[in-house]
């Protein structure tokens, strides 16, 4: 049976966007003839020409700034930050301009642009190649932040992101680039802003997104043996945040664990935990637990397994949910 990897699905999404709308352009470092260091833009220059998919000088602030300018003038740019940390030189352009342009111009200029950010660790990468920066973006008003975890979502969410009239930070979990589906890519998926219940369960809500979804499902399977029926929620986007799905789940289960790979302090996981505490106060049977990366710089490859959330850590958190009291 034919299988598709996430990298291929993303590539297909870009191909389809380029084919359907000639305002779409793709650019960045090594996205042209090389096809990107993760092959997401493979073949695009050959197929659509240098004007539609091209390499730029090595300058991330320039790349995002140029995308802003092109978006102001009729195009729909999709740019790549080669690794998560290498998006930081562009942070000022993202925060002070991309995120604010619609607002500062009283709605007269919108910026349809997508910033693709290969993110997270778990691939044995060197320092500065494994960070998780979603908190920076999610905290910034004016950005959409999308976090696919499945091959199908990678495809439809990227297409939907390109169709949006606002700047989108599109987080691609590097360690899932080679994850596969044997399904046809759907023409249409759930919209941005709608979470997916990846596994329904009665006892605990395990809320997560992006790179951590497979781990959540694994942990949910392992939890069965311990007698816990875990509901797994994949947020799919962090902004907008589908809090309705989250709170409905927690009101049902009465217990929640929030799982994310990024350092936990002042993070998206903090937000979700705080929100559950606020909205589900009377349903909660135990405190909301967070399983996140430690508040340390991403470690070297040989120690990354000590850093990354694991099935055991998720199970420990679940075990900690004061079952004796219930």
């Amino acid at each position: 049976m034919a299988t598709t990897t996430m990298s291929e699905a993303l590539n297909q999404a870009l191909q389809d966007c380029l084919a359907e709308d000639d305002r779409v352009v793709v650019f960045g470092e090594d996205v042209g003839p090389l096809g990107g260091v993760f092959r997401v833009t493979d073949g695009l220059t050959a197929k659509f020409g240098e004007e539609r998919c091209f390499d730029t000088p090595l300058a991330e602030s320039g790349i995002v700034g140029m995308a802003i300018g092109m978006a102001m003038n009729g195009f729909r740019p999709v740019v790549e930050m080669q690794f998560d940390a290498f998006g930081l030189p562009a942070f000022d352009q993202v925060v002070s301009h991309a995120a604010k342009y619609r607002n500062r111009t009283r709605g007269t200029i919108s910026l349809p642009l997508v910033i693709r950010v290969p993110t997270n660790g778990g691939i044995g990468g060197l320092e500065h190649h494994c960070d998780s920066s979603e908190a920076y973006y999610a905290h910034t008003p004016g950005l959409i932040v999308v976090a696919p975890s499945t091959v199908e979502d990678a495809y439809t969410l990227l297409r939907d992101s390109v169709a949006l009239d606002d700047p989108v930070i599109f987080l691609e979990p590097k360690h899932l680039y080679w994850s596969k589906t044997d399904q046809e890519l759907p023409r249409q998926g759930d919209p941005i802003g709608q979470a997916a219940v990846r596994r329904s369960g009665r006892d605990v809500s395990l809320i997560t997104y992006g790179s951590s979804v497979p781990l959540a499902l694994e942990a949910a399977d392992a939890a069965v043996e311990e007698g816990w029926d875990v509901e797994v929620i994949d947020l799919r986007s962090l902004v907008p945040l589908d809090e309705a799905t989250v709170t409905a789940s927690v009101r049902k289960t009465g217990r929640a664990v929030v799982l994310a790979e990024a350092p936990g302090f002042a993070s998206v996981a903090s937000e979700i935990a705080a929100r559950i505490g606020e909205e589900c106060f009377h349903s909660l049977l135990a405190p909301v637990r967070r399983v996140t990366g430690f508040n340390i710089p991403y470690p070297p490859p040989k120690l990354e397994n000590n850093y990354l959330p694991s099935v055991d850590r998720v199970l420990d958190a679940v075990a900690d949910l004061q079952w004796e009291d219930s």
Partner: protein
Amino acid sequence: MSVTTIAEMASSLLPSDPPVQFIDEHGDQHAHERYEMPSPQTLLDAYAALVVGRRVDQQATTLVRQGQLAVYPSSQGQEACQIGSVLALRPTDWLFPTYRESVALITRGVDPVEVLSMLRGEWHCGYEPRRHFAAPQTTPLATQTIHAVGVAYAAQLRDEDTVALAYLGDGATSEGDFHEAINFAGVFKAPVIFFVQNNHYAISVPLAKQTAAPSLAHKGIGYGVRGERVDGNDVAAVISVISDAADRARAGGGPTLIEAHTYRMAAHTNADDATRYRIQEEVQTWQDKDPVDRLRTYLRTSGQLNEEKEAEFADRADAVTADVRTRFLAGLPPIPPSELFAHVLAAPTPQLRSQADQLRAELAAEGEE
């Protein structure tokens, strides 16, 4: 690339020495081997705009004193740069102004009241950028220069002959974004003009502490971009040099970096105290090079400007400033607080919706009180 080509290329990119000038500080005219003096009509138009620009600038400073503007970065002394740059371009060429470009925007035809919206604290950008081909006035320095490259490159991809002009100050040339912008422009041969108003200060920091370069225009060569220097207090030279750069850009010749030598006659803004870092003698030497006086002398001496015309221009300036003053003092319609949530994203998130509801409820409650 052969050895000769490199040396040839290098010399073709270095700026004129001395800066291009047609009308000197005494109002005397000089020819230039490379550039052409603008037409008499253009110079008369420029003079009319200078008179208006100077008056509106003074009016704005007065409005600050009256508490009508939160802050105002004056264009005084730099009007030739701002006006010359706009007159040299087509109305459909894009401008990327900083906070200081009020006079440029007014010259472009934007309603002065809309220009002053930001400084009045009304809304960040008070005009419609697409209507005037003028981006919002930008405070984060040099960040808009790369937007200009994107806009210009977009036009080029569509085979339009639009040019984009990015304004920046001497200080802003030190920012990484300027480097990235001009490098992109060089590589993509984008039809952009980087127009540096070297007014010799970045707030309090003098040019010598900003760069050790022979001149700011010498920065172009490092990007394969031609650098040019111009007397920024000579509107004729500004118009000529920018027209030339715009023609080259339209013809596919790529970007130009233009450094205009000028001076910020006032403090950085009204909130600044320039006596802390510069001496009055220096200001005086630049007073003698005033861009308005100089053009006036030239036009009067050469018989192109008579008292009647002068009176007409003064009247026009009076009318514009009176209009601004009246509308300010009459009170402009306030922007309703609910608009705070209207332009954050095309479609509000659930989180924004509930915050907007909260604000609405608060406003309703206040209304009831």
